[in-house]
């Protein structure tokens, strides 16, 4: 016997979905979604569970993470209840629930808190950076004000916090999602099989490609290069490529100045994709080209803009390093680049960025249970 919790819907509304209670259960949203199949239904059932306050059902579901937020459902909804935005709000709620500190809840629900946290973090990171270059003019002045050791320690604590949080979150999600659910067909598929399917989806975005294929879709006549699935692919692989390049740099401890060095080449190409993707995503959100891009919250803007700034500053630095320019402006740019990049990493577990881990994980659990082909 499930208990109805009438307060849950007002809680979810704080994460972004304003109108979802207008739903009158016609099911058009579920019908139009290209990612639903016989045993896999969303988003109507989620709206239902949200209205009735069935928190556990929502958090343990895999279908929540199969949605690509394409907005087809929001376009079709006859009550303009915004099911697409509601699914996004639920994911924010889930991410906020997975990490142990409670910071994410505050960030998602309150914009002022978010701004304060981000600003505070940038200051701390900036200070932390100076502790690594103690002989710099500014650093010496700083350490008269604050002890070097304290700042350094603070920085390390913050880094560990994010690391622990994401591990904790992964654990919590795994426990939740491995419970039996409606997509289960009895026999479980092999682990390696599921992993393969996840990698396939990563590389090809095949599931995302099936979205927004209606005759009156905004994307119908447009080339693949500007379509949302490719934009997402660019951002994702752009970031991963840069991550790999950075890791290689770190491991080989020899950040070569030659732009033809393999790691550099990888970095450059990935950087181009990243900037391409984020520029388009920002433009789409500014112009609200479809309902998928109509509701953008502060967390969404921050994520995109930070990635964009990191990309642009990265290019600036690459160019200035290649030309050997050593002006002050480049030092500032370097500082900005590093702060922004580290902030992205630190806020990983507490922001939209966490989807990079949670989505593939959920997809893995889904592929383990379902008989879907892809």
């Amino acid at each position, binding site marked *: *016997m*499930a*208990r*109805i919790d*009438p307060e849950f*819907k*007002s809680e979810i509304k704080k994460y972004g979905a304003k*109108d979802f*209670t*207008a*739903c*009158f*259960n016609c099911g058009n949203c579920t019908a139009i979604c290209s990612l639903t199949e016989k045993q896999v239904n969303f988003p109507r*059932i989620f709206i*239902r*569970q949200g*209205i*009735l306050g069935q928190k556990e059902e929502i958090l343990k579901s895999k279908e929540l993470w199969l949605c690509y937020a394409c907005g087809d459902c929001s376009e079709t909804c006859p*009550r303009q209840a915004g099911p697409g935005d509601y699914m996004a709000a639920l994911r924010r709620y889930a991410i906020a629930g997975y990490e142990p500190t409670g910071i994410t809840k505050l960030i998602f629900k309150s914009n002022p808190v978010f701004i304060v946290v981000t600003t505070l973090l940038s200051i701390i990171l900036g200070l932390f950076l100076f502790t690594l270059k103690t002989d710099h003019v500014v650093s010496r002045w700083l350490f008269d004000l604050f002890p070097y050791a304290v700042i350094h320690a603070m920085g390390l604590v913050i880094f560990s916090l994010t690391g622990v949080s994401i591990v904790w979150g992964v654990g919590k999600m795994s426990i939740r999602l491995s419970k039996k659910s409606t997509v289960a067909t009895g026999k479980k598929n092999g682990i390696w099989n599921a992993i393969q399917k996840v990698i396939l989806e990563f590389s090809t975005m095949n599931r995302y490609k099936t979205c927004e294929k209606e005759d009156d879709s905004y994307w119908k006549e447009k080339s693949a290069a500007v379509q949302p699935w490719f934009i997402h692919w660019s951002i994702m692989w752009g970031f991963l490529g840069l991550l790999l390049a950075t890791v290689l740099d770190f491991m080989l401890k020899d950040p070569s100045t030659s732009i033809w060095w393999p790691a550099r080449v990888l970095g450059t190409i990935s950087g181009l994709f990243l900037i391409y993707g984020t520029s388009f995503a920002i433009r789409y959100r500014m112009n609200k080209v479809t309902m998928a891009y109509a509701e953008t919250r502060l967390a969404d803007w921050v994520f995109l803009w930070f990635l964009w700034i990191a990309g642009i500053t990265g290019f600036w630095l690459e160019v200035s390093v290649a030309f050997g320019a050593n002006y002050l402006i480049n030092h500032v740019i370097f500082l900005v680049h590093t702060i922004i990049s580290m902030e992205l990493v630190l806020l990983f577990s507490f922001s939209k960025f966490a989807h990079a881990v949670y989505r593939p994980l959920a997809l893995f659990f889904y592929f383990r249970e379902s008989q879907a082909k892809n």
Partner: protein
Amino acid sequence: MEEKQKKQRIGVYICHCGGNISDYVDVAKVKDLVKSEDGVIVSKNVMFACADSNQKEMIRDIQDENLDAIVVASCSPKLHLHTFRNVAMRGGINAYNYTQVNIREQCSWAHSDTPTEATLKAIGLIRAGITRVANSEALETIDVSSTRAVVVIGAGVSGMRAAIDLAKMGNQVYIVEKENQAGGNISQWGELFVSGQKGKDIVEELLRRVKAHTGITLFTNALIEKVSGSLGNFNTEVRIGDEILNLKSGAILVATGFDPYQPADGMFGYKQYPAVITLPEFKSMIDQNPEECLMIRNRRVTSITYIYCVGMRETKGDNKYCSRVCCTSAIHNSIRVHEKFSSINVYHVYRDMRTYGKQEILYEQASKNGDIFLRYDEKMPPVVEQIGGKLIVKVNDELTRKQEFEFETDLVVLVTGMVPRKDSPYLAGKLKIPVGNDKFYNEIHPKLRPVETVINGVFLGGACQGPKNISESVQSSLSAAVKINALTKNPKIQLEPIIARINFEACIWCGKCAEVCEYDAIHPLEMHGKTVASVNEATCKGCGICAPVCPADAIDIAQYTNAEIEGMIDGFVQIVELKKEGERAASEEVTAVAGMKDMPQIWRRISASLDNGTKTIPALARELELNPQLVTYHLMTMNKYSIVEADGLDDKDEYYFYKLKKQ
């Protein structure tokens, strides 16, 4: 019956109808054949019988040729019966010495694929018309004097509103109200949907106008004891205290309204738990509520649950219908409550949401307000229990895969609908108006005659005919008011003379006719020392049910007398000889005599083909250039009637050969 003088000078007009008839029926041939019938002086074809020019021609013919009856063979009488009756009258003959023969809807249009047969049928039909009109009588419309007064039963919103318009149009109106106050159900109500106006205010306004009009007399505490008379002359006996009043009127408008459904004790906890109330009770609760917070029995209400379709839409119960207005009323009240106290949690446990028309906007508003909607199936209704001072509701929600949910609530509102008044059978008995399956008063036709009853002069308005909101009730009662005025404004009301007539000499007063009459139109009468049956001309509808039960054959129906009907049958079944002109041969071929029950044309073609040798179905289809399925159908029918028989299989063992069966 005396031997009536037959009409000997009959004019027959056969219409082309611009091709609608003449494309299929050979109207020229018909005209020629009919000319030789007994009594026919004029037989003509016309292009459009209803056209002005043709009407004038008919009148000229009547006058020049001294015709005493006419037959018009064209379209359905539903279209031009009155047109041609007027033609007859303008020509100088009685309107009932004209008969309409339908050779369009019932002939040319129905048999457009078999023209020869259509022609034969048309000839038969026209012959029947001729013999009928030969035996017809001259009849006069029955004039009934009309009283320019109306009795309105019920002083609710429907009754009062109609009374005001009736009085404005010049009628004397008597409103008879059973209770000691006018206003009916809505005088109890506060804010109404959609205007937000209060029911009390509407009633006050109407009452003010009723009292201001000199033509309206309102009687309260008035009970109807007896209603007698008929259209134009009703007498309503009304008892007020010890007095009896006799109100004379030309018509009666029944606007008695409805009763709210009272749930049985224990239904969803009604009367069992104090916090379970009906929607009307809830409405008055809100009206009387203090401003700060919603209270029930001195306890604060933090959540409300509405359970819909209580006592309605019961597939196996008494009230199978949907009461139409309750969904809107409940949703409207939920929105009202939310406007004042937005922190209250609301649950709607419904079966279907029927906020029809513009009221749909209210449903959207309630959803946006955060009201929770749970849908239940009739077979699994919600359960209300009281556990430790709180009400717990359990329901299987159809919208969430029939999962069972439970929740706490402070108040349960049973959304109940409209049922007929307890005293409606009493009034139905007095007025002799029928009651439908839903126990509301019955109209003649739900679409085409929604405010009239089978009793001439008794009309229905408002919720007494079926669940309606105020707007719909007023629409219906105003519609009835206008119809009533159309009757009462004439000093005389003209009725069709197509009614039952008694032959007083033959009648032995056995009482059987009075027994079967649905309209209570036959009563015994003392006449020259003998008791005979007598028909009330205003009440009789000419349905004809009394005629066959009379053992003495003393009743006939005007225009449907024995002579006329028998004449029609004789005229129709005579065999017609058609002379067919062949296309190739110069000489005329006389085909076999084609009687009314002769074979269809295709059968003749198949027979002719089989005469030349046995054939299979595909071969026949090829030769006759017909669809093989059509050939199969006809051949099998011919087989059934033993006109053909099978004659072995073909080489491939696929099809049978068929041959004509030797008679």
